[in-house]
């Protein structure tokens, strides 16, 4: 399987009046053609900022350093027309809250067709036809009438489907879905995940699924990457990772999951403590203060992200199931 996106040593810092925040810290990640990778972490783990950095969509006070190559082309630091040619066309991103991510002042049709006009040079009628076809593909009924509606007239689930359609119209090679189900009801979440599954089957797009919800990852992803405090702490095939997590944080996350197959008598194990303040430089392992098996050197040295086997890696001195 060939590599389509390769991130190496990516570090993203934000300059705030209270100091510098290292949102992403020395991250290496590889995405293969057609693969679906889940990126899991709590709020503040840097999972969204990582991919915003790749696409150059950081806020004004953010700076990304390192490398992110798409098919060999360096994206970090890319500007202007070069960048715009790739965005939406080769790498597409969909965002968490479709109500704020869609423009409330433009019709759905307008927001869909402009992708086609800009990237494929299509004229109005052909763009309309393709937009309708795509809306139907993501299971939006009465598609041609929907083109004239405004986002606030649609339900949450439909808005997210419009976002997915909008991203796919560019015919991208990579789709980055940033918490696509977080803002939706549980039942709607399942529908969106179905849509994503179909999309994956039909278009074979390499997908990155960013989420804090492990359950979402299980059904959809081939591989999982776990992030904490801006760093990657574990990576592996989804089944293996779930059945035998190597990093204490992953173990804690899985342990904290409410499960339907237990008798409900055990306690939900919350992870004690708080994620670290990213304004201070972190010495050693970021998870050490909350880690049940931490030892002396965990506080002094940052554990390297080391391979544990084929397709398995973790950043922990005491890694192992």
């Amino acid at each position, binding site marked *: 399987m060939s590599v389509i996106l390769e991130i190496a040593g990516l570090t993203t810092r934000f300059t705030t009046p209270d100091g510098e925040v290292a949102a992403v810290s020395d991250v290496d990640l590889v995405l293969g053609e057609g693969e679906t990778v889940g990126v899991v972490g709590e709020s503040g783990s840097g999972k969204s900022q990582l991919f915003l950095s790749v696409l150059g969509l950081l806020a004004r006070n953010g700076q990304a350093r390192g490398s992110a190559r798409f098919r060999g082309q360096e994206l970090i630091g890319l500007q202007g027309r070069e960048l715009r040619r790739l965005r939406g066309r080769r790498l597409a991103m969909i965002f968490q809250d479709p109500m704020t991510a869609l423009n409330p002042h433009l019709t759905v049709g307008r927001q869909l067709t402009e992708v086609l006009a800009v990237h494929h040079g299509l004229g109005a009628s052909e763009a309309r036809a393709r937009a309708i076809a795509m809306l139907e593909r993501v299971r939006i009924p009465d598609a041609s009438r929907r083109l004239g509606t405004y986002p606030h007239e649609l339900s949450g689930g439909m808005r997210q489907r419009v976002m997915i359609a909008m991203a796919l119209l560019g015919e991208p090679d990579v789709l980055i879905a940033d918490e696509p189900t977080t803002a939706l009801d549980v039942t709607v979440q399942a529908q969106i995940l179905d849509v994503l599954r179909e999309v994956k089957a039909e278009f074979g797009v390499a997908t990155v699924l960013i989420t804090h919800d492990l359950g979402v990852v299980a059904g959809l992803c081939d591989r999982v990457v776990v992030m904490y405090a801006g760093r990657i702490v574990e990576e592996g095939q989804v089944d293996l990772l779930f059945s035998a997590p190597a990093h204490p944080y992953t173990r804690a996350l899985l342990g904290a999951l409410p499960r339907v197959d237990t008798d409900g008598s055990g306690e939900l194990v919350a992870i004690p403590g708080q994620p670290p303040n990213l304004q201070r430089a972190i010495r050693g392992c970021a998870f050490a203060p909350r880690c049940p*098996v*931490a030892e002396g050197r965990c*506080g002094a040295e940052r554990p390297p992200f080391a391979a544990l086997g084929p397709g398995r890696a973790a950043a922990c001195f005491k890694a192992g199931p």
Partner: protein
Amino acid sequence: MAEARLETGDLLATRPAGRGLWADAWARLRRNRAAVGSAILLGAIALASIVGPEVAPHGYDAISWDQVGVAPDLAGGYYFGTDDNGRDMFARTLFAGRVSLTIGLAATLVSLAIGVAWGAAAGYLGGRVDAAMMRFVDILYAMPFLFFVILLMVYFGRDPLLMFVALGAVSWLDMARIVRGQTLSLKRREFIEAAVAAGTRRRAIITRHIVPNCLGPVIVYATLTVPQIILLESFLSFLGLGVQEPMTSWGVLISEGARQVETAWWQLIFPSLFLATTLFCLNFIGDGLRDALDPKDR
């Protein structure tokens, strides 16, 4: 294998010791150089207005027929020149400062009193009373108030008390809206419910929870109301309807100076400078307060 667990205190990069909302806002305000500079400048103007006329070489209403319309003369003690009645512009400008600033402050307090009372009552009582009270505000808001103030001044005489009330009455509407909005959103916040559930008395809820949370926007708007009032008063005085002789305000001086603009520029420039600077400073401070107390608003 159980190793000695690292103490949280050793490694955990702790947050800065929790700063209260006010300390945070104060720190932000201090960083705003424009606001700080404005505060200092404003303080200087206020000080000069209070002390100046007492220590100036000439009295603010002392007439010297041989010094009529004289340009600024440092040696003779007429720092800002004289007006057409031979009175020292320096002392007059500073004295006018006393009047304008006092009116600004006093009328703002009136507007504050009415606005906060109205808004808090409407927000707290809610329901139809609230709707009716705010409808009233909406109607008043759409009226060309300034004209009525002018009419008031014309028909009912130039009583300074009347002017305070009139000016304050014109500006309470915004304050009422703000306070009502704050009260409404506060009523629904969980900590109020928690306080009620814990059995806290209503008066305690109001003083300990509602008032401190309303204080922020109220302070901001009060600071921004003062320049509006000073502007209104100057406007009225400019038309000859505000402050009357022998009292004077910047508006009056500017009105007189405007008439002499071609022959005696100093009569216009100095009061204009003071008025503009004061308004500038107040606006900067108000903006700074707004940014400091509600960073989302930036």
